[in-house]
């Protein structure tokens, strides 16, 4: 019986995504009837709810939370209005209604800076509607990415294809792999999101108790997940072989590619989530509260990361110090562009520069002081929680150099992915290019700036951290263009994203706009994904030859 109800409840939200106004209104009507029915079933709230009542009321609360989310996030105005109205009605009946926690989709970016669902241009609106129709929600990630609608479109298309379209893996596997990958970085936001999706596509709730409860086949993926997330250069063809030749639990090549793409996608998306301080979805745990607002103003995570109101005045202070930061950066870029031909560094020098940058990147200190213990809730999705990037950096382990010219995404990675998982290669290719080439020719307040040099420096710096070297790049440029606080941010976000704090976010590029910082985040995310993919695909190629 419960299952049937669940099915119904899922169906009821689905139809709100329709583009047809009357269908939406109809669906809204059904929902409002159901809410009324449920409210009546609970009866007067004054009496303490009996045991059976708690099930009912938690069910109602879920619906109310969902309504709250819709009232804020639904791209259709009619649904938003109706939801607000309905919540008001329920409140008038004496039922406690939820209110959103936190301020908007991101903790780092003031809500007023982020696009309001109600005030977007027609293109973004259409992208939002598509996303809403596909998932029944418009998540905070999409809202933040809404700064860059071109990219968002490509991102959502790829993600939709990976999760919902034809592919070798069953749907619930895909979400589970997403959970595994996000959990590796203790990204509770993504985990919560996909736990819901996982259950929605018929996944076995038992698996959520931990990787040990999942099928053997998925358990075997744990090792790859771990290495890929933290030290992708250690992946060898033996790892792939272990997965591909495990008799009854073995993966097919196509499945493995699908899994690898999903893992890398969610590792890097976790980086983005932390890097932009994405707050929990309103309808998920931690996104709303039924408590009256008089209590704590902080989100739990805010406290854990040391983000209170304390650094409100930081901005003013910083502005004075960093005045002219943008101009200095632009001047350097100009110099580099001009001086390039004069100063001809020897080849040895170039190699040393790469090595130096690589080694230094290891030494960039991420906030080591606080030992972040993953909450038990999330750590159950992966094994060996202590395995992280920092282990290796402390020991000063050497990262072998990966020559980009010998195994590049364009020539090799693409061909392999597209061969085994058709169309995805193309989509990823477009997404990488979109991220790499995206520019508005602006820097902070300056217009008509060629930012390609800066973008390339960021991209190559991230690949450099993973040991990927481009022969045709002078790594001295990185030192000129990326200052220390920016490097710390990049390093933290890419290697241990869970440690990203609001302070870090604020302390780099102070004069830049939030949209530009999100742009940087997109670059970081895609560069990281490509780096991980390259290592994994190279191992698969080696296995195949």
């Amino acid at each position, binding site marked *: 019986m419960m299952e049937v109800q669940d099915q119904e409840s899922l169906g009821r939200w689905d139809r709100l995504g329709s583009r047809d106004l009357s269908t939406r209104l109809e669906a809204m009507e059904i929902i409002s009837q159901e809410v009324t029915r449920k409210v009546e079933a609970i009866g007067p709230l004054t009496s303490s709810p009996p045991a059976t009542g708690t099930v009912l009321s938690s069910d109602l609360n879920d619906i109310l939370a969902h309504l709250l989310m819709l009232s804020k996030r639904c791209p259709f105005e009619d649904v938003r209005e109706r939801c607000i109205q309905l919540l008001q009605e329920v409140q008038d009946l004496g039922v406690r209604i939820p209110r959103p926690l936190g301020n908007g989709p991101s903790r780092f970016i003031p809500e007023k800076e982020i696009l309001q669902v109600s005030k977007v241009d027609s293109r973004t609106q259409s992208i939002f509607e598509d996303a809403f129709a596909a998932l029944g929600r418009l998540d905070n990630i999409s809202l933040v990415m809404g700064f860059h609608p071109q990219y968002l479109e490509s991102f959502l298309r790829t993600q939709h294809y990976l999760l919902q379209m034809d592919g070798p893996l069953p749907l619930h596997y895909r979400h589970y792999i997403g959970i595994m990958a996000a959990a590796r970085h203790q990204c509770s936001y993504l985990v919560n999101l996909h736990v819901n999706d996982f259950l929605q596509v018929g996944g076995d709730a038992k698996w959520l108790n931990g990787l040990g409860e999942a099928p053997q086949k998925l358990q075997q993926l744990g090792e790859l997940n771990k290495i890929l997330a933290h030290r992708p250069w250690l992946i060898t063809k033996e790892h792939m072989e272990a997965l591909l030749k495990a008799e009854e639990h073995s993966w097919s090549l196509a499945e493995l590619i699908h899994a690898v793409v999903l893992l890398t996608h969610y590792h890097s998306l976790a980086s983005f989530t932390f890097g932009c301080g994405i707050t929990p979805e309103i309808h998920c745990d931690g996104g709303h509260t039924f408590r009256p607002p008089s209590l704590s103003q902080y989100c739990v995570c805010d406290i854990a990361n040391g983000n209170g109101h304390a650094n409100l005045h930081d901005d003013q202070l910083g502005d004075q110090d960093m005045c002219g930061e943008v101009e200095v950066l632009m001047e350097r870029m100009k110099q580099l562009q001009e001086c390039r031909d004069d100063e001809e560094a020897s080849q040895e020098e170039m190699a040393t520069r790469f090595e130096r940058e690589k080694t230094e990147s290891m030494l960039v200190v991420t906030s080591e002081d606080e030992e972040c213990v993953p909450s038990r809730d999330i750590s159950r999705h992966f094994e060996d929680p202590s395995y992280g990037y920092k282990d290796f950096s402390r020991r000063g382990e050497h990262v072998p150099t990966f020559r980009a010219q010998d195994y590049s995404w364009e020539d090799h990675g693409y*061909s*392999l992915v597209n061969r085994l998982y058709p169309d995805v290669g193309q989509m990823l290719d477009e997404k990488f290019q979109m991220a790499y080439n995206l520019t508005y020719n602006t820097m902070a307040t300056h217009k008509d700036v060629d930012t390609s040099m800066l973008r390339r420096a960021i991209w190559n710096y991230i690949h450099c951290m993973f040991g990927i070297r481009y022969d*045709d790049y002078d790594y001295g440029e990185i030192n000129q263009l990326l200052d220390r606080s920016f490097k710390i941010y990049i390093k933290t976000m890419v290697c241990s994203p869970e440690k990203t704090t609001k302070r870090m976010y604020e302390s780099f590029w102070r004069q830049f706009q939030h949209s530009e910082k999100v742009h940087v985040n997109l670059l970081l995310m895609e560069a990281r994904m490509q780096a991980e993919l390259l290592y994994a695909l190279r191992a698969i190629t080696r296995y195949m030859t």
Partner: protein
Amino acid sequence: MEKMSRVTTALSSNTISGKTMFCHLDAPANAISVCRDASQVVVAGRNIFKIYTIEEEQFVEKLNLRVGRKPSLNFSCADVMWHQMEENLLATAATNGAVVTWNLGKPSRNKQDQLFTEHKRTVNKVCFHPTEVYMLLSGSQDGLMKCFDLRKKESVSTFSGQSESVRDVQFSMKDFTFAASFENGNVQLWDIRRPDRYERMFTAHTGPVFCCDWHPDDRGWLATGGRDKMVKVWDMTTNRAKEIYCVQTIASVARVKWRPEKRFHLATCSMMVDHNIYVWDIRRPFIPFATFEEHKDVTTGIVWRHQHDPYFLLSGSKDSTLYQHMFKDATRPVDKANPEGLCFGLMGDLAFAAKESLINSDTNRKPYPGGDRRNPLFFFKKTDPTEQFAHVSSALTIYQTGLDSNHMDWFVSTAQRYLLTGKPFAELCDHNAKVARELKRPQVSTTWTMLRIMFSDPANLPAAGLNHSLSKLGSLPLMNSFSLKEMGSVLASESRLERGKGDSRQDNIHLETGNSHISNNNEENEETEGSDGPAECMFGDAELDDDDLYSMDHENQAEEQEYTLPQEGFQLRHEIVDNPSAPEHFQQDKADSPHVSGNEAEVPCLTPIESFSLISISQPLFTHHLPASFFCPIVREMLSYYAEQGDVQMAVSVLIVLGEKIRKEIDDLTQEHWYMSYIDMLQRFELWNVSNEVIKLSTCSAITCLNQTSTTLHINCSNCKRPMSSKGWMCDRCHQCASICAVCHHVVKGLFVWCQGCSHGGHLEHIMNWLKSSAHCPAGCGHMCEYT
């Protein structure tokens, strides 16, 4: 086999000879190039830069150009080219963006001549002009091509492609034109004397064009290879570049090189996954003309050893080997190709194509009597003297099964009338039994009835329900008449089975015997198929069934013998058996006959009984009835039997109707296979609704997800014919509502029907109503609309 004498005549200078041979390199090669007299080859890679002389029996390392304590990145070569006029001159493209020339005539150990560091990104390709000694061209990742005069220290001209990185540059053989291929799929044509803009640009591939090569003789033919796994040959002599040939390979194409002296041949190797080198005849794009399979990792460089000798190919690879391939040692895939094809038609026709020689040698075959017809069709390809392919002329033979052209009707009508869901199990069975009976397929009908009896849980099923269904059965007209003389016919059909087995092999879909020429069919099938093993398996199945039934009966005997058997039971069943028109009955017959002869006790649970009183008496017995799961092995055998016979419809229908009761008994792969076959057949008969229902009802995840694919519907605006972006019913461009009903002038949201003549239309209902009163188009365009 090629003749060596031709080689010698073709060569201008000394004769080339040798054998297939290889040598190990110290490191993976990225590119190779030969000197003009074909005696030496240079191999370049990230960690290797060496010259080998090609001797009769082996490669001999002649010179290592990688010198110095700490070799710089200038040695890390992406490409290398040996000058075809000046034999001491080489050029390399370095991954760090340097273009380096090397002079082998230098007395010092370091042969480096000039260094150009003008490119900012990796240089992918260098190319000497074929006739101008000092002209060198480079193409780089930074999107620029530069032309160097080797007498000067800098480039003389820079060509900007205004697009992404340059993957290949190739001088045309005769003039000052060069072609450049780009990562974004474009190919540009430039005049070396005009650096301001390209002369022509066209999109050759989707995704990067990795390579291009001008035809050595046919001026204006350009071959390009891309990441989209295609090799295309373009005719550049016309105003617009015209694609004249296209070869689809199995992996992205890294290099392409025309074969000397062979106008239509070119060699390719791939960037990833596939390690072989293929030589294609571009007129025969489906099978490579020759294949070299020696390399263990991707081939990175291929070059014909001499520009007038088509029999020697050199190749370098990531597996750190350098090979000389002899054409005579190449694998010829065409020899292994099987020029025979066999295919079933929808109506059970069989088409068979084979080499003509094979068919002709088979002269002693008898012609087909009666209904079976053989239509030999012969196709000849006009021979082209330049082609070196074995000329295969094939004969196509079509066999028709029987004269009765409507013989698949039963399938269609069964598919349409069967009920698979929506009613209680027993009713579904009864309904389907009735359908089968009405289509004169009594064996199938009986099977349904048996299934109902086996699986209707007697403990839970109220007697009324059973009685009800039984009484319904009893009232069917067919059940009323019977005769007792059917034993003979059972035996007869068994013996016919022996002969009929060939027939059932010949045609998996349609099974019809009763023809007088079965023996002929048999003979024919032995010729084509070679074995009738599967038919024997079928016998095995049938026997197994017997055993199962027997054993069950014995267990049951004690109880069931307690009451007397109604004589009617026998006769009814015989009546059902009595229809020897289809071979599907054989199994049934065989399975049944033992009960007829020996085990009478089993009958009550197999046969419908007319008498009410008897049922009520047997009711307590039914409570001790065998659990439904007991029958599962039998049902599984039965389903497999039907599927084997080609009646996959029955197998799938039973699978759906029985649902959980049987699903676990049959492994998922088999189920999926059955579903796929049935859905395929339904779709070929255009029974879309039924096929969709089957997909929906199936429990295999692989099947149900069929319904979730291709769910996007792309529509164009009816006014401006542009694709509609996903914004409701308004077209973005012309700001009009698309798809307006011609009758009511409202937007059609739902079923839209339109006349294919004038493309006006509207709501299905409205148009239907309109057409009742008028034959003209409701839009007033004057067209006499036609709807089918």
